[in-house]
């Protein structure tokens, strides 16, 4: 039996406390009124007059959502020139910014609008009062800034929830595949998935908070979006409202979370019952349950990805998105299993786990990292190649406003694990596996950050107090729940039919 070390428990509590303080600070420090935002924007502009900082902000602003800018952005000189012009007339700058910015959440940009944004047009042609435009721009920035602590919380929460789901999917696959190597790791996997109920409840709370208009994470939930004649009216979202409406959306979420939790609960129950049984009835039950779960999972996973992540950009759609999200959290789940196993092994708790088990997990980490890259690239390249304005905006905002995280994720999730874990000997060396694991987990957090932040906070992103404390809070909670669950049952199942094979597994 595992005993939760006091030191680890204390660290978990410290992480939770630090995280909570940071989260609260994040919420308290968001601007509440238009005046606050005015000050922030004015400060940013003021700085900009001296150097290039302000220019850059304005530039990223107007490229924010104009798809036709893409080719433009490729030529830095031309781009800067446009930016300078924009800067010259202050009001106009706001104007174009506003046009572009609202477009990101409203209509896909019509060709004329794009042209207007590119070449600075005299004010009167726009038929928009600069004061009104300025006010709308400030409001837009305010929404983005107010979204920041919410989005930070949302990213961290969904990341840890899905890491657990990755481990659960891996566990179910191992059961159904009748893998001979992994049964010694089943209790570790069950320990990790113990976070699922806790994570689900918090995440469901966040979804409800969005539905109750406590934040502006989901633009399709705003008032009047589907009401013709309303200033917020959006024909595209209205067309999707048969699917994207709060009632249906929250019911789907409830069904998925419930389904996953039920599988976890019964699977563990059967596994523990199998320890005390005199035949393999519970094992067979678990086999059937896992097979059923996997069917349910792959359907719910895909829909989950549309609902919780893709619908943040309600104008954008991508067919392989569900698989892409799956690859991202599946590899994170496997990495987490590997790291918890290595930790427990280093403390002397896993008698039967040998370097071959670690080797197998490392192979999965390596292989699924490459799989993630394959899907990441397929999605990116297909859209980049065809360059259809309505879908390419997704990548334009990410490449322009999130340059480092966007390309950095490929380095962290592909290049680094590829080069470190390709070597057979390295796959067995704990420090190397842990290093690769930390990089992979960080990389996939960044991946989720890249999926969620551009739609919610746009170019106002920053990895600051809110983001870091949200991660710390959920990390602490995760450690607390997982290692507490590990103390509840012996770390080696007793009567699994593949137990003997697994104990003597050698590669």
């Amino acid at each position, binding site marked *: 039996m595992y005993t939760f070390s006091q030191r680890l428990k204390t660290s978990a509590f410290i992480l939770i406390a630090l995280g909570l303080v940071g989260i609260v600070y994040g919420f308290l420090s968001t601007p509440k009124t238009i005046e606050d935002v005015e000050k922030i924007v004015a400060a940013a502009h003021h700085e900009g007059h001296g150097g290039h900082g302000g220019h850059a902000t304005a530039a990223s602003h107007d490229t924010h959502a104009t798809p036709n800018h893409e080719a433009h952005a490729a030529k830095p000189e031309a781009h800067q020139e446009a930016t300078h012009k924009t800067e010259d007339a202050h009001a106009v700058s706001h104007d174009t910014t506003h046009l572009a910015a609202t477009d990101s959440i409203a209509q896909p940009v019509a060709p004329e609008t794009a042209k207007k944004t590119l070449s600075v047009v005299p004010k009167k042609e726009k038929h928009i009062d600069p004061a009104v435009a300025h006010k709308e721009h400030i409001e837009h920035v305010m929404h983005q800034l107010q979204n920041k602590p919410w989005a930070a919380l949302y990213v961290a929460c969904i990341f840890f929830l899905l890491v657990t789901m990755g481990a659960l999917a891996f566990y179910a696959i191992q059961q159904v595949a009748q893998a001979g190597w992994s049964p010694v790791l089943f209790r570790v996997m069950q320990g990790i998935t113990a976070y699922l109920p806790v994570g689900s409840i918090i995440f469901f709370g966040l979804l409800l908070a969005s539905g109750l208009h406590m934040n502006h994470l989901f633009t399709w939930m705003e008032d009047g979006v589907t009401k013709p004649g309303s200033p917020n009216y959006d024909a595209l979202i209205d067309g999707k409202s048969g699917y994207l409406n709060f009632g249906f959306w929250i019911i789907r979420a409830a069904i998925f979370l419930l389904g996953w939790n039920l599988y976890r609960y019964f699977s563990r129950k059967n596994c523990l019952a199998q320890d005390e049984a005199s035949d393999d009835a519970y094992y067979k039950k678990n086999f059937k349950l896992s097979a059923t779960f996997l069917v349910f999972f792959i359907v719910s996973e895909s829909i989950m990805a549309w609902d919780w992540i893709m619908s943040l950009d309600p104008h954008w759609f991508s067919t392989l998105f569900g698989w892409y999200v799956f690859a991202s959290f599946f590899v994170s789940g496997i990495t987490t299993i590997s790291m918890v196993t290595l930790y427990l092994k280093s403390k002397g708790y896993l008698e039967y786990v040998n370097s071959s088990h670690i080797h197998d997990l490392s192979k999965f980490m390596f292989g699924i990292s490459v799989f993630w890259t394959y899907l990441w690239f397929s999605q990116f390249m297909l859209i980049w*190649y065809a360059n259809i304005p309505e879908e390419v905006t997704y990548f334009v905002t990410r490449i322009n406003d999130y340059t480092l995280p966007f390309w950095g994720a490929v380095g962290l999730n592909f290049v680094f694990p590829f080069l470190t874990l390709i070597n057979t000997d390295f796959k067995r060396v704990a420090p190397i596996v842990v290093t690769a694991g930390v990089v992979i987990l960080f990389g996939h957090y960044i991946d989720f950050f890249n999926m969620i932040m551009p739609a919610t906070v746009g170019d106002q992103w920053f990895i600051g107090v809110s983001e870091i404390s949200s991660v710390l809070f959920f990390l602490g909670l995760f450690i607390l729940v997982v290692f507490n669950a590990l103390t509840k049952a012996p770390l080696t199942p007793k009567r699994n039919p593949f137990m003997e094979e697994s104990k003597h597994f050698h590669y």
Partner: protein
Amino acid sequence: MSSTKVIYALYNDDDVLMDAVKQTRKAHHHIEEVFTPFPVHGLDKAMGLAPTRLAICAFIYGCIGISVATWMMWNIMINDWPQDIGGKPSFSYLQNMPAFVPVMFEMTVFFAAHLMVITFYMRSRLWPFKKAENPDVRTTDDHFLMEVSVSGDEEAMIAFFKNTGAVEVKVIEKH
């Protein structure tokens, strides 16, 4: 030396063979070669053979492959004749890189796989009209053969191999 003598010890079970190999190594007889009809898991370790470096070769070949692909497409598409084809930006390699990735990937795999296979053939001396080096036809079907060079007391060695469970022990003059 005009000729050397070797012992052919034949076995009909891979477990017996493994034990025999271990005993032979312990007795410090030099194993020249072992012939088996199929791969026997762990035999190389029991014989004390050095691990293969084929994978390292493959990695290097892959690096060569991606370099060739990169240079080729940079030279053709960017350097030599940078045409505007359907609006794709051919100003620099990086700008148009996503379009080149499929070729870069395939070339990497192609070089790694084919050059590794050729390396394998060369290192194991395999080619179409090569004369087969088979000491006993049964070793491709259901027998295992261990070839050990004779040194010192021949009779004692024969007795030793009979003891390891060999179904047949022969002494052969090898030219």
